[in-house]
């Protein structure tokens, strides 16, 4: 029988696509019930009007991630607090696709994966922007940053050590891991000889283009942080009144000066 820890690990791989954050960190998951191989996951989205396409993606990802845990026979996913929750719950639990669930509203040739990719790119840019900022703050020149290879970067506690020559980038370890996680999702190279910073198409970034390149990344980063904070606040206000005035946010890790 699957354990709760295994199910939680699987759920930690399910992202709110727009907020680029696991649903477990956002506090969306209410309950996991395990009865033999049958797992029921109940979760709540922050508003009644959360875009149902994103909600559908999350429900589907829960079904798929939990379904991969050894010993799981059947997964039931129940989302709460959404204007189309009944349709989404029925569709996902019957194993239907998004287009099959909403035949009248959806272009049957369209693919939710395109939408997912768009937001993966935004998340990639935001995570990359944070890491480049950390390196600039640690005194690295842009040309040094842009020529770094993955193998030049080592995690040491909360910091990163770059070499050669040795250079410490404080508090950037978690940011590196988050960035690499996204590189993997986008099937970008994480080999030691690969350039650490590339465009989402895997191209190198020229030093002369960096300022322009980062302008968009910077607003993408802010946008994710802003939305994350808003969504967490709306969730707390309605469902966790004791945390109503707590304005801290997991999006804060994107907010570096």
């Amino acid at each position: 029988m699957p354990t709760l820890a295994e199910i939680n690990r699987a759920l930690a791989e399910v992202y709110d696509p727009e907020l680029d954050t696991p649903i477990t960190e956002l506090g969306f998951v209410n309950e996991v019930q395990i009865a033999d191989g049958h797992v029921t996951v109940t979760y709540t989205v922050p508003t009644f009007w959360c875009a149902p396409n994103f909600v559908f993606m999350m429900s589907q990802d829960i079904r798929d991630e939990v379904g991969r845990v050894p010993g799981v026979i059947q997964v039931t996913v129940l989302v709460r607090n959404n204007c189309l929750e009944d349709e989404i719950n029925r569709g996902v639990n019957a194993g239907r696709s998004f287009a099959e669930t909403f035949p009248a509203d959806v272009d049957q040739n369209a693919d939710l994966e395109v939408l997912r990719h768009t937001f993966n790119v935004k998340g990639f840019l935001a995570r990359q922007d944070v890491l480049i900022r950390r390196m600039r703050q640690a005194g690295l020149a842009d040309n040094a940053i842009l020529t770094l290879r993955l193998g030049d970067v080592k995690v040491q506690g909360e910091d990163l050590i770059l070499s050669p020559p040795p250079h410490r980038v404080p508090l950037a370890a978690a940011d590196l891991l988050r960035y690499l996680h996204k590189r993997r999702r986008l099937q970008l190279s994480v080999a030691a000889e690969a350039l650490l910073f590339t465009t989402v198409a895997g191209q190198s970034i020229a030093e002369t283009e960096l300022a322009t390149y980062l302008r968009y990344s910077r607003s993408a980063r802010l946008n994710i942080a802003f939305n994350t904070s808003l969504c967490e606040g709306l969730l707390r206000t309605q469902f966790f009144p004791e945390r109503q005035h707590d304005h801290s946010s997991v999006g804060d890790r994107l907010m570096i000066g």
Partner: protein
Amino acid sequence: MYRTADGREIFVIDAHTHLWDASPENQRGKLGKGWIDCFYAYHKNLSPPDKVWTLEHYERYSVEDMARDLFVEGYVDMCILQSTNLFEFYHTGFNPIERNAQLKEAFPERVILNGSFDPRHGEDGPLGLNALRQAKQQYGIQGVKLYTAEWHNGSRGWKLNTPEAYRFFEECEKLGITNIHIHKGPTIWPLDRDSFDVADVDYVATDFPGLTFIVEHCGLPRLEDFCWIATQETNVWGGLAVAMPFIHSRPRYFAEVMANLLYWLGPDKLTFASDYALWTPGWLVEKFMAFELPEDLEAEFGVKLTMEAKEKILGLNAARLYGIDSEAKKEQLRNMPVVLDGAAPATV
């Protein structure tokens, strides 16, 4: 009017307000309830604790409540009422033009009343072409608020760049309805694409250079895409509703949003708004006047939020859009105290 410590009189237009009725009697089932509950969560979460209303009051407030919150306690000289219909969620609509007109009738010199249209209503529907012409004739509207997320007869929204919508924009040009406020918020059609996508604004802004498109909520939650479009198109503006209250709960976020907007759009294409009754304007105006951009953002973006910029954002920009002479208006309103029922005239 907001007076600074050194006596400067700041003209304030609240560019996005509503007089709504979301009371249980007006709700059509769970959609009407879900709508106002969601609004109330925004209100409760982002207002300072002493500015939070009861749900009952939030669901339905009076003309007098609104006048007090805006004109007496909110520093607001003029407000723009943006009509939002939602006939499938509320029996008599959420704040259709007829309801909003009550405030206009009570305070004609202080209220700019906007209409709306919906291309799916065709020629004769309640939000169709004839209704638009009628609204121009009856109320002299200079602007419309478009809610592309509106549900209608099984359709869950519409796009700006369709032939049907273009007929309405052409009519707006003919009628001299030049200010097109677009809500870019929760919408679930087409479900398979990004429902907050601001790309359709790009098309209409190019094709209708005589119209100004004010993207409410600055395209949040798609700030990056909105900034990109608004930089290319001179007739795309940003409305600050929803971004404003972050000034209290998350001042750093607000600062970064402002720095981005000042960088991409500049101080001449932004309008202040409380989104009343989502929030009340008094505390927003006070905090905005006291607000300063942190030095690191000034340096990084090369922008400043000067007193002149604040003055533009708080009122002069919207005045320019609606052809209001702010000095003459200040003078007129000085001699026109706000009288609330049963109370002595309030000094504004």
